[in-house]
């Protein structure tokens, strides 16, 4: 067992563990926070910390796995691509959802300190 493989495996395991913890915390936050807009921040933890990071971990572990045979590069490649895709897709999704919710007034913004967007729209 090469030392570099051990490092990669350890890194992968750590990444996946971080992902699991982030997911757990995000789901707690999603239940705990008062309104949609604040929950979005918890959801961001769930997607970046809870999906991108562990997917990179999966890719790293796949790279040194024997079981996958020659197809291990496929798992690596697709998980990296998926991670990148989520990096682009998830903020877009959150943004457009927030946009729609605010425009169509689907969710209350309360509690809030300030709402500049509403002020701008009222003008």
């Amino acid at each position, binding site marked *: 067992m090469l030392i570099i493989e051990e490092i990669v495996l350890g890194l992968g395991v750590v990444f996946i563990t971080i992902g699991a913890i*982030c997911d757990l*915390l995000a789901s707690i936050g999603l239940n705990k926070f008062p*309104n949609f807009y*604040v929950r979005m*921040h918890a959801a*961001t933890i769930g997607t970046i910390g809870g999906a991108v990071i562990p997917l990179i971990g999966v890719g790293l572990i796949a790279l040194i796995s024997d079981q996958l045979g020659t197809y291990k590069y*496929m798992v690596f*490649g697709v998980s990296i*691509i998926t991670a990148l895709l989520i990096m682009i897709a998830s903020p877009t999704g959150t943004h457009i959802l927030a946009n729609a919710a605010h425009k169509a007034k689907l969710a209350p913004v309360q509690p*809030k300190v300030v709402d500049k967007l509403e002020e701008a729209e009222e003008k």
Partner: protein
Amino acid sequence: MKKQAILFTLYLLAYLLISGSVSLTDLFFGAIVAFILSIITCNYLVKDETKLSLTRLLRLIKYLLVYIFVIEPRAHLDVIKRIITSEYKPGIVEVPYYVVSDYSKTLIAHSITNTPGTVVVSINDQEKKFYVHWINVKTVEPLKCRAYISQYFEENASKIFD
């Protein structure tokens, strides 16, 4: 021509990553697919090919590394703390920006949204400002908000894409 070549390389790389092999068959089909796609999408994805350069790519990679390993963890820890303590001061603030190209705007917006604690709710292209939902409103002054939220992103984005 340059943009085609760069897109071709990117597509071929992605094709091989998804296939997970570099056998001759995959190289052959990957090259065909990448060639066709690069011809079709070059005008649709790249507006100004003089901006494509290696330094910009290196900057992008550096930025991504810093973003993932420094900024993200900090923001994550901050919001995790808020989840546990239930301590928040949410609000939507204005954040002005000064970049020009679509890609840099998108990069900034994504960077803001991807850091937990800030989400871009809307963008006003005429007045050049984002409306950002911030979990902990420290100030409502637009310029100070920019300093807190998007200063670093914008500096990098203008270097990468503008």
